């Protein structure tokens, strides 16, 4: 039988990818997500209008306010005559990056804390009490304090844009990891009583790899859900931060803020809320499908469906 061509053991990731590719929803999701990324990051190179440009001529400006879509303004204009397409693209850059990075921070934190607490009995108490503490802290004052303490040093050392960005993603990440932590911990508690963990212990797998190889892949699915939901809430939270004056400068568009601003005009110009609303939902939906695909791909038992 050895003469038969034997495939080398493939890396798990090749497997996962092969499986992922066969998941229609995931592929569509990925395509949509990539298009969104292209739209917001490459789009501005093609559509070069300044998203914050207001016609300084009052008469002209009045004429370009709240325009419906046209050739000149494919998505119309806002109440100050700013081009919505340009604003959507610029806003998307921030929203998508904030959403992804903040979600990554919060998921990483949450998963780490959750796994540590669930796996190491000694850490369970302290880490879970820490989680309780963070859950109990009122969000707003916490954010205000963080911004007060870190905004100036950060923007001085990293420049205002990066500084603010980091501050925001960090603020969101640090205040939203607790749910993931508790969920992961619950799963880990159950998982570590499974026999294959015992088996891994018998070959002397150290805790680190035990976690990485045996525990983590098996708690992937709640993490995936938390990640998807995390993106949405990060995008929304970012806009909430702006309203506290904690976010980017006030004329800086983000999807969340465009949505909020648009709400005021929902009756007269519904398009104002529809564009950012669709953009956010599309992002979340596409990420969700990618996550679904990934989850299925990571679970050998449901592969092949």
């Amino acid at each position: 039988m050895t003469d038969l061509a034997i495939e080398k053991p493939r890396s798990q990731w090749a497997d996962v990818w092969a499986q992922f590719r066969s998941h229609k929803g995931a592929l569509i999701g990925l395509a949509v997500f990539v298009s969104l990324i292209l739209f917001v990051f490459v789009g501005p190179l093609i559509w070069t209008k300044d998203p914050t440009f207001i016609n300084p001529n009052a008469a002209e400006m009045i004429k370009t306010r709240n325009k419906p879509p046209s050739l000149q303004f494919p998505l119309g204009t806002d109440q100050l005559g700013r081009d919505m397409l340009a604003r959507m693209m610029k806003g998307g850059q921030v929203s998508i990056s904030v959403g992804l990075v903040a979600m990554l921070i919060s998921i990483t934190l949450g998963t780490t804390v959750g796994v540590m607490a669930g796996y190491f009995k000694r850490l369970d108490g302290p880490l879970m009490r820490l989680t309780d503490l963070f859950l109990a802290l009122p969000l707003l004052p916490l954010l205000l304090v963080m911004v007060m303490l870190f905004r100036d040093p950060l923007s001085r050392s990293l420049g205002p844009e990066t500084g603010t960005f980091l501050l925001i993603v960090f603020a969101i990440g640090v205040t939203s990891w607790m749910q993931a932590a508790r969920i992961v911990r619950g799963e880990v508690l159950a998982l570590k009583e499974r026999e294959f963990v015992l088996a891994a212990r018998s070959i002397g797998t150290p805790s680190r790899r035990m976690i990485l190889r045996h525990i983590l892949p098996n708690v992937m699915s709640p993490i995936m859900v938390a990640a998807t939901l995390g993106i949405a809430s990060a995008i929304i939270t970012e806009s909430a931060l702006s309203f506290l004056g904690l976010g980017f400068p006030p004329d800086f568009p983000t999807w969340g803020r465009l949505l909020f601003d648009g709400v005021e005009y929902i009756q007269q110009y519904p398009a104002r809320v529809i564009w950012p609303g669709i953009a956010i939902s599309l992002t979340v939906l596409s990420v969700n499908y990618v996550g679904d695909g990934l989850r299925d791909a990571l679970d050998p038992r449901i592969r092949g469906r």
Partner: protein
Amino acid sequence: ERGADGNVKVLYSQAVSIMNAYLSSGTKDVEVGSLVLEPLAGFDQDGNVFPRLADGLPSVENGQIAEDYTSITWKLKPGILWSDGTPFTADDVVFTAEYCMHPEGGCAQAARYEGVASVEKIDDLTVKVNFSAPKYNPFTAFVGATSPVLQKAQFANCLGAAAPTCTEANTKPHGTGPFRVTDFKVNDVVELEANPNYRDPAKPAFATMTVKGGGDAAGAARAVMETGEFDYAWNTQINPELQAQMKAGGKGTFVSAFGTLVERIEMNMTDPSPDLPEGERSTAKHPHPFLSDMRVRKALSMAIDRNLLVEVGYGEAGRATCNLVPAPAIYASDNTDCLTQDMEGAKALLEEAGWTDSDGDGVRDKDGKKLSILYQTSVNPVRQDFQALIKGWWNELGVEVELKSIDAGVYFGGDPGSPDTFQKFYADVEMYANNFDGTDPEPYVAQYTCEKAPRPETQWQGENINRFCDPAYDALVGDLLKTRETEKRAEIIKKLNDMLTKESYTVVPLVDRGRLSAHSNTLGGIVLNVWDSELWNASDWYRIK
């Protein structure tokens, strides 16, 4: 006939937290409190004083005001009863003064009693207020909704530090007004009913009143103008287009009136640079690198199209102004030249001041210093629109602008530990609105004297936000305090106004903001009053059938 018209529903987008105006200076609390507690005299819609619990108005002529303005004697209307049926007497008035002037009480309206030396009871229906120095405007204590009379019997145990512990009294005070409280839910809803002992037996027409609080202005307007759930909505400040649309619904009307609230840009006369050591930023030690040049300030003002701002932000509820004191009419300066935008003139002015774009990056500079401005204000959609528009115009001038918006609680909180308070003014220009209480602008213009600038030594407290400092101005303020003739006072005030605005452009007024409220078409008797409580004539309201 009293109580014939049933229930009236009023909506305040800020909820009422207490009925006692002495423990809260919040407009909503004062106004709703005024349904129950009344002062001796009030202001009408034109800002004139008229008697409420007083029997006629004191004047120098009738001798109730002393020739030298050191005392005022009030005669009380006879036969007035508190809502619990006990008679209203001079004792209550004397007690009220004692209540607010108690050093530990933290009285929110203490300013109303400033300069009051003592209040004596002459007889059951006569009270005399003695001033420590001549007071040319004696209509402060017991005048207007901010200075109502409390019932002694109810508040006797609530003096000084005990004031806040009298929850029952503070939320359900006995009053002489047209209504009395039946149920009070803090920051939520106040249920009132007609006061059975109200002095006019035919009033109020409504048997009960509900004052609901919370939400936003647009929602409040909607509840009156579109769903018709409420009869009256307070301060429905919404964007002009929405105003127009709601009006078209035909369920209600907006009413507006103008007071003294002016949205303005303050120019920082000191250097806010973060490179300066803490404690020296935005202090008189370092004058502002370019805003201390009047031409720059003027150019910045000239680039602004105030009418457009009004159109975008306020519509009917605002009008362009160049004055810090836009009203009452006798004090308002006729300064109108800023109303037309002059971009070219502004550019020329900057050229003249030596600010040119020497390196061609679109931003003017001089001596290697860029004309770059940090422009801050509180979080508020209209203000953010203003910021964006003004930034556009200033960019057009060749000025680089960075915008910043700060949570109102922080911005106006005055916390010395926070870098973001409007008093600290760690920015080049900032925008907010301010006005004065009542009809007398004296304390208002007196805010801009040198020593009132916020400084580290004063824990950054002080009202001279832009750190304007001109000995001539200070001297003129001194004159004002000594002047008693109304015309003279008006003249000085106009002069002071001009010195801050068109002569120095340290204060750049933008919009005179009016009050905009909405009421349903079935609610009659509404007269909007910006000088006193908006509910000042609630006893006259009635249902249009």
